[in-house]
């Protein structure tokens, strides 16, 4: 589901929950005389704030992890490009072309797929071609090549960076798609319903109810929005994944 539709749906659900709790509170008040102390709202509100803070910290943690994974991938791309410079020109140009091709595919194809939490077939094909090249004799130094400080450990480094690149991609992909933790969703929904019900039960008056509803609707779904972002930070625009890859393409790998 597209990110905007998800947020709209989320607000719709919370609107329904608000209306339902208002209706239930009215029904309860009409049927029986109840006297709930308004001070009860305070611990309930605190619990809600703690939950929000917990989710927010998780979102930040998740974002940092994703940023680190992307940075690590960009660094690995740079390193692989750098070690390829010891290859003879005819081999180097093909290796670098494949590296650029893969990087461009991440920035253009996989960044879009990741908004849906999916990997991309074109990018998969690009990394497969790069791995085929690294596994072929074309990626090896000719036996006649002189040994230089940069060429001395070329084979080991090229191999390490090749595998690191696969790891970095998998880490990036896994962090962009966390799935939706249903129990957490239910907990937030129930807690919100309880909070709004309590608020309507302890407050009376037309204007108090209007402002209370407005405030609840404005602020209440925030933890749920956090949960959405947690599930895929790229889709909700909190992290622009393409810019580090575009930057490295603009500079030179």
């Amino acid at each position: 589901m597209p990110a905007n539709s998800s947020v709209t749906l989320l607000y719709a659900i919370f609107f329904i929950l608000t209306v339902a709790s208002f209706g239930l509170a009215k029904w309860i008040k009409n049927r029986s005389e109840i006297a709930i102390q308004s001070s009860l709202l305070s611990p309930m509100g605190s619990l809600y704030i703690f939950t929000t803070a917990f989710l927010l910290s998780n979102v930040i943690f998740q974002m940092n992890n994703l940023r680190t994974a992307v940075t690590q991938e960009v660094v690995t791309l740079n390193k692989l490009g750098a070690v390829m410079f010891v290859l003879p020109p005819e081999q180097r140009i093909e290796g670098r072309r494949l590296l650029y091709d893969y990087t461009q595919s991440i920035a253009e194809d996989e960044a879009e797929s990741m908004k849906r939490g999916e990997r991309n077939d074109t990018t998969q094909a690009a990394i497969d071609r790069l791995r085929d090249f690294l596994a072929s004799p074309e990626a090896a130094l000719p036996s006649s090549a002189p040994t230089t400080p940069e060429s001395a450990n070329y084979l080991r480094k090229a191999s390490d960076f090749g595998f690191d690149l696969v790891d970095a991609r998998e880490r990036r992909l896994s962090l962009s798609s966390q799935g939706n933790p249903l129990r957490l969703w239910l907990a937030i929904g129930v807690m919100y319903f309880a909070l709004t019900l309590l608020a309507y039960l302890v407050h009376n008056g037309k204007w108090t109810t209007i402002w209370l509803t407005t405030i609840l609707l404005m602020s209440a779904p925030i933890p749920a929005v956090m949960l959405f972002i947690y599930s895929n930070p790229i889709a909700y625009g909190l992290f622009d994944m393409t810019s580090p890859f575009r930057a490295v393409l603009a500079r030179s790998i």
Partner: protein
Amino acid sequence: MSHRNGNRDTRTRADRTSHLTAACLSLITLAIKLPAAQANEPGISPRSILIGQSAPLSGASSGIAMRFRRGAHDAFNEVNAHGGIHGRQIVMIYRDDAYNPGKTRTNTDRFLTRDKVFALFGYWGTATTQSALPLIEKANTPLIAPTTGAQLLRKPFNKLIFSVRASYHEEMEVLVNHLVRFGKNAIAIVYQNDSFGMDALEGAKAALQRLGLKPITTVAVERNSSDTDEAVRQVALSKPKGVLILTAYPPIPSLIRKLRQRGSSAQIMTHSNSNAQNLPPDLRHSIGVSQVVPYPWNPRIDLIRDYQSAIRNHDKQPTYDFASLEGYIAARALIQALEKAGPNPTRAGLIKSLESMREVDLGDYKLKFSENNHNGSNFVQLTFLMGEKGSFIH
């Protein structure tokens, strides 16, 4: 005695006068003769050396020719700023031929008869240069650094033409070898239907033949045309793994776009004079381009450092590229030859001077000429247009 003496004195005085007169006359004659000799050498004046360039300064192929001119101009400016060559400033005059052989011929005629240039320089294109050859040969004027790698300027050997770039056949060798080496044996060729296209096609076929292969299809397109529908249809039907585009710039964007629209993932390769740098950004991805000069952004090469410095000194917004580097190298070769030709250069002297440049090191980049070899370089490297802005990688 005195008379005798007087006679002797008179004779001696007369002799002296006669010797003095003869000496004065000789000096005057020499003084008259020297500028006369220089005045007789077209394009040489006491303060300048005139050279002429005909190139497409308008139209679709103008970008690459303009960049070549800029590189050469910056090299000439640099030497002129330091006093010129033996006190003479190099003056370069340009005429636009819009990549039209008829106009090149007219321009050459004007250079040789009206402007009376000393030498011709940096002619752009094969068919265009070919059209000017009879005039060049008739006037016995050297043509330095034509920006074409066609065989017809190399075989049979022409004593007036000096090239500073590799031939198209050498470029084709590099392009074909790369495609075949990395498994793209099914190669289609789109060539320009003129002497340039035929020359490059022959080079590509020969390179494939050496590997025991043949092109899976060859299709011609007309010069300066962007009507490529039929060519694209034929190429796409042959399902190639690699496509060699051997044309000037005009049909190239349309060929690439239409091939990609048809879903072809063939590796597209083209040559140094394709002006690929001018391709729209969306097409500048994974296009192989052979180059006949070193990578202009690599300051580890002495020549490139000098080139970048010349560009920075003379351009407000310095940008580096292969064509201006080729122009810079061509100009540096001409400058060296003119310096070696001495203070009273002649066309024959310039030819002799160039032929004596057996191994000229321009800074980690060498040009080699001789009496039997007027092709100064066979340097070819492969680049690809890649990355965010479709820049060249090597």
